C-alpha cells in the first residue's frame, strides 16, 4: 500500500510526458493518448483517495528525499485526492463531449497541438492541487495560463486571437501580483515550502513585526488570484473567451481553469498564512463584497445576452461570485460551501457547454436563444442535459445547485453581520438565474413541432453527427450532478475532513 504515495507525483509527470509525446503524433493518436492519460490519472487519483482515507492524515511526499527546509514537496490529504479525481472526471467528459467539434474548429494538421495543451493543463491543475511549495505553485499557474491561452486561440479566427490576448493581459496582471506577493512572503519568512513558511508567519504574527507587509502580501495574493479566476470587476475577458472557444475548451476553461487558482488560494490561506490571520486582516470582507456584487451583476449581464453561450459564460461570472462569497464568510462552513459550489459549478458548467453544442447542431448552427426554439425535441439527449444543467444552476432540489445554495445559506447564519446581505444576494441571484435559464429551457421546448429552421433531413444528419461520445458525456455529467445532489452528505463530509487536513 505504501507504494500508492508515489501516485500523485506520477500523475503530474504522466500528464506532462503525454503532452511531449502528443506533439509528435497525429491528431487522432494524440486524442487517444490524452483520453488514456486522463483515465489513468482518474484511476490513480481514486487509489490516492483510498490511500489518503486509510491514512487519515496528510501525507508529505519528499521529492529527491531532502527534508523540510530544503527540497520540494508534494502533500496530499483527502481533499486534494478527491479534487484530483473530480477534475480528471470533468476533464475526461469534456474531451469526450467536444472532440467531434474540435476536429471541425481546429485547423487541419494542428489537432494534436490541442491535445498537447489539454495534457499540459491537466498536469498544471494536478500540480496546483498537490504542491506544497509556493514557487512551484507560481510556475504551474503560468503553465496553466499559457495552456489556457492556447486553448482559446486554437480556433483560428479573429475572435480567438483577440479573446486570447485579452485573457493573457488580465491573467498576466494577476500572476504579476501573485509573484510579487510570494516574493514578499519569501522575504519576510525565508521559506518557500508551505509548512515552514507557516511557522515563520505564526512567529511574525506573535511578535507583531511585519504587520503591514503581511497585510500587503495577503492583499496581493488574493487580488492576483481573484483577477485570474475572473472575480467581478476583472471579468471582462470571461464572456469573450468562453463564448467563442471550441466546446471542449469552453467547458474546461469555465469548469476547471478558474477553479485551480481558487484551490491554490484556499491552500495558501490555510496552509501558509493561517486562516485566523487571514480573517483578522479583513481581506476576506473585500472578497465577500466583490463576490456578492458578482453574483448580482453577472446574472444581470446574463439576462441581457441573446447568445446562448455568452449567457452561460456570464453565468460563470455569477457563480465565481458565489464561491468568493463563501470564502469571504470567513468560517469553516462558508469554506465548505465554497468548495462544494466549486464542484457543483465544475459539473454544471461543463454540462451546459457540452449540451448547448448539441442544441446548435440541430438548429442550423444558430446560437442566439430564439434560434434554439424547439431544439429540445430535435435532440432529446442534449435538451434533457441542458435542462438539468439549467435547473441545477437555478437551485432545483435533488440537483447539486440546490445543495450548494442551502450550504451557503446555513453558513451565513453563523455570521450575524453578513447574514442579511448573503441571504438577500442569494435570493436575488436565484431569481435572476431563474429568469435567464428558465427562459432558455422554455424556448428549447416551445414552438410548433416541425416549425424549425432546418429541414427534416438536416436534423437527422445532425443528430447522427452528434456522436455517441457527446451523448455519453452529457448523460454522465447529468448523473454526476444528481450524485452531488443526492449523496451530498458523503461529499460534504469528505470536504470538511479534507479542509481540516489542509492546514
Amino acid at each position, binding site marked *: 500500500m505504501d507504494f500508492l504515495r508515489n501516485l500523485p507525483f506520477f500523475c503530474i509527470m504522466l500528464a506532462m510526458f503525454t503532452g511531449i509525446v502528443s506533439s509528435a503524433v497525429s491528431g487522432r493518436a494524440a486524442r487517444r493518448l490524452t483520453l488514456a492519460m486522463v483515465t489513468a490519472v482518474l484511476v490513480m487519483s481514486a487509489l490516492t483517495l483510498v490511500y489518503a482515507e486509510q491514512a487519515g492524515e496528510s501525507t508529505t511526499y519528499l521529492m529527491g528525499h531532502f527534508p523540510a527546509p530544503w527540497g520540494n514537496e508534494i502533500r496530499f490529504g483527502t481533499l486534494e485526492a478527491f479534487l484530483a479525481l473530480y477534475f480528471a472526471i470533468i476533464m475526461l467528459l469534456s474531451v469526450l463531449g467536444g472532440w467531434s467539434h474540435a476536429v471541425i474548429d481546429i485547423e487541419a494538421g494542428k489537432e494534436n497541438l490541442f491535445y498537447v495543451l489539454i495534457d499540459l493543463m491537466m498536469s498544471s491543475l494536478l500540480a496546483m492541487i498537490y504542491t506544497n511549495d509556493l*514557487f512551484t505553485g*507560481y*510556475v504551474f499557474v*503560468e503553465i496553466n*495560463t*499559457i495552456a489556457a*491561452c492556447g486553448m482559446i*486561440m486554437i480556433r483560428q479566427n*479573429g*475572435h480567438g*486571437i*483577440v479573446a*486570447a*490576448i*485579452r485573457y*493573457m*493581459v488580465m491573467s*498576466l*496582471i494577476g500572476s*504579476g*501580483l501573485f*509573484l*510579487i506577493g510570494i*516574493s514578499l512572503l*519569501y*522575504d519576510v519568512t525565508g521559506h*518557500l515550502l508551505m509548512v515552514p513558511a507557516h511557522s515563520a508567519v505564526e512567529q511574525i504574527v506573535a511578535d507583531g513585526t511585519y504587520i503591514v507587509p503581511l497585510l500587503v502580501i495577503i492583499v496581493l495574493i488574493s487580488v492576483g488570484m481573484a483577477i485570474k479566476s475572473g472575480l467581478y470587476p476583472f471579468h471582462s475577458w470571461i464572456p469573450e473567451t468562453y463564448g467563442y472557444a471550441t466546446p471542449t475548451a469552453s467547458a474546461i476553461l469555465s469548469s476547471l481553469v478558474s477553479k485551480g487558482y481558487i484551490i491554490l488560494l484556499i491552500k495558501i490561506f490555510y496552509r501558509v498564512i493561517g486562516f485566523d490571520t487571514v480573517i483578522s486582516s479583513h481581506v476576506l470582507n473585500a472578497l465577500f463584497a466583490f463576490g456578492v456584487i458578482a453574483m448580482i451583476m453577472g446574472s444581470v449581464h446574463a439576462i441581457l445576452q441573446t447568445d446562448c453561450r455568452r449567457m452561460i459564460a456570464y453565468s460563470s461570472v455569477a457563480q465565481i461570485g458565489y464561491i468568493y462569497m463563501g470564502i469571504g464568510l470567513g468560517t469553516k462552513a462558508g469554506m465548505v460551501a465554497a468548495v462544494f459550489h466549486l464542484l457543483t459549478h465544475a459539473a454544471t458548467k461543463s454540462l451546459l457547454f457540452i449540451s448547448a453544442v448539441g442544441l446548435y447542431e440541430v438548429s442550423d448552427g444558430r446560437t442566439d436563444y430564439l434560434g434554439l426554439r424547439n431544439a429540445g425535441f430535435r435532440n432529446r439527449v442534449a435538451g434533457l442535459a441542458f435542462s438539468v444543467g439549467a435547473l441545477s444552476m437555478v437551485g432545483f432540489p435533488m440537483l447539486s445547485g440546490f445543495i450548494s445554495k442551502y450550504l451557503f445559506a446555513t453558513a451565513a447564519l453563523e455570521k450575524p453581520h453578513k447574514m442579511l446581505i448573503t441571504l438577500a444576494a442569494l435570493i436575488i441571484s436565484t431569481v435572476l438565474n431563474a429568469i435567464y435559464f428558465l427562459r432558455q429551457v422554455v424556448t428549447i421546448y416551445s414552438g410548433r413541432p416541425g416549425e424549425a429552421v432546418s429541414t427534416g433531413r438536416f436534423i437527422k444528419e445532425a443528430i447522427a453527427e452528434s456522436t455517441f461520445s457527446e451523448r455519453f458525456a452529457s448523460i454522465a455529467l447529468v448523473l454526476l450532478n444528481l450524485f452531488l445532489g443526492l449523496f451530498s452528505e458523503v461529499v460534504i463530509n469528505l470536504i470538511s475532513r479534507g479542509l481540516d487536513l489542509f492546514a
Partner: protein
Amino acid sequence: MSISVLFASHLEETVAMILFGIGFSLLLLNRNLIKKIMGLNIMDTAVYLFLTAKGYIYGRMVPILTDGITDPNAYTNPIPDGLVLTGIVVSVSVSALLLSLTIRLYDRYHTLDLDKIIMEWRKEEDA
C-alpha cells in the same frame, strides 16, 4: 520615514517597487500591445531585482566552493538566484507567446492599438 531615507537604506527594494508600479500600469493601461509587453517585462524584472537584492548579503560570495572555504557563512543562499532564473524562463516564454499573438493581430487588423482592434472586432461581430 521620508523618501530620501528610504532610498538611502533600501535603494534596490524601493527602485524595484517603483519599477513594478510602472510596469504594472503600462501593462494595465497602455493601449499599444508592444508597450503592454514591455510593461510586462519591466514588471517581472522589478520582481527579479527585488529577489536578487534581498538574496544578496553584503560581503559574501556566490555559493561556489573557492579556495577551500567550507564555512557556510562565507556564501549567500542560492535559492533567490534560482528563483530569478526560473522566473526569467517563465517571462521569456510568456513574452514570446504575447509577441506571436501581436503579430497575428497586426496581420489581421493592421494596428497595434488594442482598443481599435476590439472595436474592429465588435464590428465584425455585428456584421
